[in-house]
């Protein structure tokens, strides 16, 4: 999943990265936002249930709704059985 600062929240890291990219000869970069990438594996009966659980995790811990937005995708991986 990707957790990023809300568009209205100033992201000084993103501004510095944009400046650095411009200095390196990439003037076409209009903006940069720096976020977090989190991957996790969980056990569940189906994708729909897993999506619901992951959404709960995001709201409770992984993302702070005051300043951050999140988006995620869930896919099946081969189980032990």
């Amino acid at each position, binding site marked *: 999943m990707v957790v990023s600062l809300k568009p209205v929240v100033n992201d000084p*890291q993103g501004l510095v990265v944009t400046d650095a990219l411009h200095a390196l000869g990439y003037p076409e970069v209009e903006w940069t936002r720096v976020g977090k990438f989190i991957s996790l594996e969980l056990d569940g009966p189906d994708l729909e249930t897993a999506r619901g659980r992951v959404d709960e995790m995001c709201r409770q811990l992984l993302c702070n709704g005051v300043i951050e937005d999140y988006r995620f995708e869930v896919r099946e991986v081969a189980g032990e059985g």
Partner: protein
Amino acid sequence: MTVCFGIVVFPGTWSDRDCVHAVELAGAEATLLWHADRDLRGADIVVLPGGFSYGDYLRTGAIARFAPIMEAVREHAWDGGPVLGICNGFQILCEAGLLPGALLRNDSLQFRCQPTWLRVDTHSTPFLVGCHPGSTLRVPVSHGEGRFYADAKTLAQLNSEGRVALRYSESDGQLTPDANPNGSLENIAGILNEQGNVLGMMPHPERACEELLGSADGLQLFSSAIQALAARAG
């Protein structure tokens, strides 16, 4: 009466002993509370000190808010008990929903450890009851993530309800961009909950309690809270 401060220690807390020293200088007793404790051992006032609880993993304060002791801190706050969150303690109070808003990376992207002036904007909290609104305090900051943010509606509410307790200022109380060490909205350094019993602030009053350290202004926060409790009791 002897007032007792409960100083909460999480793994990674670093200002707990300084807080004990400050409390003792102010003439009260202090007891250290471990994050895994479930009760406040009779503490009248709770302090969440500065540091890097749980290594600041995920977000500052994000893991600490789920520590067992926080349930007791929450109940104490709901009952009107005084709670002071300093630096990481402020971050934890915001994550726990006891205070609105959040603390973000400093706009300079640098860790800032420096003296600041704070303008007292309200004294309607036990911790500032001994200060005059408009007066200034010399207290240092020491943080990498202290930029206060709240959405426009929350910010307006904090202002209209007189819940911005402290703002970074010049020594005469003037609010300037230069006085703001981290890019906080409207120079905000400390805020209150609705009842005024919970104060969160990024600067470290416990590091400004003796002239030897450059300022003794921070001691006023501890002695104010002691006075406020004594007045209530007696």
